[in-house]
């Protein structure tokens, strides 16, 4: 049986990839996608803990379902924000959207 550490390492790798994407991509939708990757890395670790920890009673599964639902809502709102940004700035490149600068 594959040990728990394998899942956790995979989850950490995925989270790192997502974080790197969120920090390095310039396109707003790419950032959203990277965040989705981070969500799913967290989901993977939830499920893994739920399967391997002895006193677990489905809390991990429930959390994963919650995260998926929240992620769906977040994606909807995020896309709406991206659309709003595009209407105002004619671009979705986050480098060019810097009105909050000093």
């Amino acid at each position: 049986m594959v040990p728990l550490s394998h899942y956790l390492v995979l989850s950490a790798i995925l989270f790192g990839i997502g974080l790197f994407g969120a920090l390095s991509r310039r396109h707003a939708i790419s950032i959203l996608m990277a965040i989705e990757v981070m969500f799913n890395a967290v989901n993977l670790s939830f499920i893994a803990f739920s399967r391997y920890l002895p006193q677990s009673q489905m809390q991990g599964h429930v959390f994963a379902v919650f995260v998926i639902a929240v992620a769906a809502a977040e994606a909807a709102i995020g896309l709406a924000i991206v659309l709003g940004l595009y209407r105002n700035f004619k671009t979705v490149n986050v480098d060019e959207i810097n009105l909050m600068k000093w």
Partner: protein
Amino acid sequence: MVEMVWLVPVLPLVGVVINGLFGHKTGHGAHKVAIAATGLSAAVALVIFVQVVVGASLDRDIYTWVAAGEFAAPIGFLVDPLSSVMMLVVTVVGFLIHVYSAGYMHDDPGYPRFFTYMNLFMVSMLVLVLANNYLLMFLGWEGVGLCSYLLIGYWYEKKSASDAGKKAFVVNRIGDAGVLLAMFLIWRTFGSLKFTEVFDGIGGAKAVLMRPSVLGLTLVTVICLLLFVGATGKSAQLPLYVWLPDAMEGPTPVSALIHAATMVTAGVYMVARSAPLFNLAPTALLVVAVVGAVTAFFAATIACVQTDIKRVVAYSTISQLGYMFLGCGVGAYASAIFHLGTHAFFKALLFLGCGSVIHALSGEQDMRRMGQLKEKLPRTSRTFLWASLANAGIIPLAGFWSKDEILAATFAGHHYLLWALGSAGALMTAFYMFRLYYTVFEGKNNVDHHAAHHLHESPPVMTVPLLILGGCTLVVGWLFGFPPDHGLYHRFVGSVFEEAGTAEHAISLVLTVVLAVVATLIALAGIGLAKAWYKTGDNPAPARFAEQFRGLYTTVLNKYWVDEFYIAIFVTFGKKVCRALWGVDAGVVDGAVNGAGWLTVAISRVSALFDFRFVDGLVNRIADVIQGGSQSLRKIQTGVIQNYLLAMSVAVLLVTVIYMAMGGGR
């Protein structure tokens, strides 16, 4: 009715208020208000006078005017024979002159202003004569001085007129200072300024009054001399007479009312009112008599050579006032006041006659450009003749009785030198009056063509007052003055001065008649000389006479250079003193003030430097530090969301690492 005496001055005051505040409305109807006010006032005065004749009198305080510590001065009126005579003369003559003014001033642009001043003058003069204390009398005294100033300078566009007004005011100030000082002394001695209290207090204060004070003179003498200084100013006596001839710059009715009939007699009235004090001061009385006689003579000489019709009459007024003071000085107060009354009538008449002539000749005042006006101005010339005869002292006209009484009293008082001066003055009086009369109304016609074209007798509004005054001039002398010293007038007014303890010099009937005859002969001689020289208008004798006594003639013609002397001594010298004092002011006083100012500025500079450098510097440094810090801190806010995200991630990682390093929660 005698309690209603306050109405007499208040009625003209109503006129002042109406014409003064609503002059733009009354406009050329201003005379109606003014004449109605003075007319009613004269009517009330007449009723009160009649009541005083039958024995009424009044001394009542109406209102406490000034109250300061022990000092108190009421507004109160004193009605006795003396003040009622004055009141009657002032209101009646004043009323007639107001009527005349309506004609004389009819096309003047300042019509309401003129009548406001005239009414204000009436108010002041009536307050002066009716006051029951020195302070209220002084209020009237100053009031008439003010009105005199305003009315002399009435045509203020003319430099000479406004200068004359100022001159009158300034010269009067000198006299007023005397009156003020006298009032201080009276207050200190008697503790009151009310006539009755002062005169009743004389007995108690005799020791103090007779004590020598300044220059070895007794206190009462000092008081009287100070009062007399005021009288010489107001009544144009030597040495303060210089303002009166210049006062002729005013409109002629003003000259008649103020500078002949009423105001200038205020000094005589005050001396007569203060008779109880003067009677204690023989030295002061002698000074009054000498100044009066010398003025009478001195002014008469000047009147003989003047060529301005009004100035002749002005010098005549000064001369006649001199007779009044001569009368007071020899103790004949009643006669002096009698002369005051008769003089008011005939001198007002003379001035109004002059006004009528000037009016007829379109403003000409030089008598060398007149002549043969008798047919053209019948009423004026007739009344003028009466007034001239009265002034010259021809029996039975007004001036004879009063002037003769004064001269007789002088003679009886053994002042023979003063009597001789007065008689010489009387000779010249007759001469200059008829020089004036013959030159203007007879003699040669020297009227220029332009004026001759407009030549006309004055309208009835002017000639009727002339005729009324003329009638009074004809009548009042013998009606009230006969027999001398015992006539109606003397029985009426004499009581006031008998109570004052005046020493009357008895005079025999024979001497009275002799003196009267002498006086009449002197007057006739003067008239005869004038007739011989001026009746035909081409007699070379006057010119030859002037040639013969050239030095004397020039001196008199230039009025003894008194004005020039005063200017040189007082005006120029005064200016120099003032300039020197100004130098002290500018150098020392201003210097001290400016130095203090400079010092303050210097100290302020240092203080400002400290403020700028230290206090402001401290505040600015703090601000700079904060600003610099903020400048570097604001760079963190890049606006790039990923930077924030990175920082957050790094921070979370850091916290996690630290957490783990510290044992991971175990």
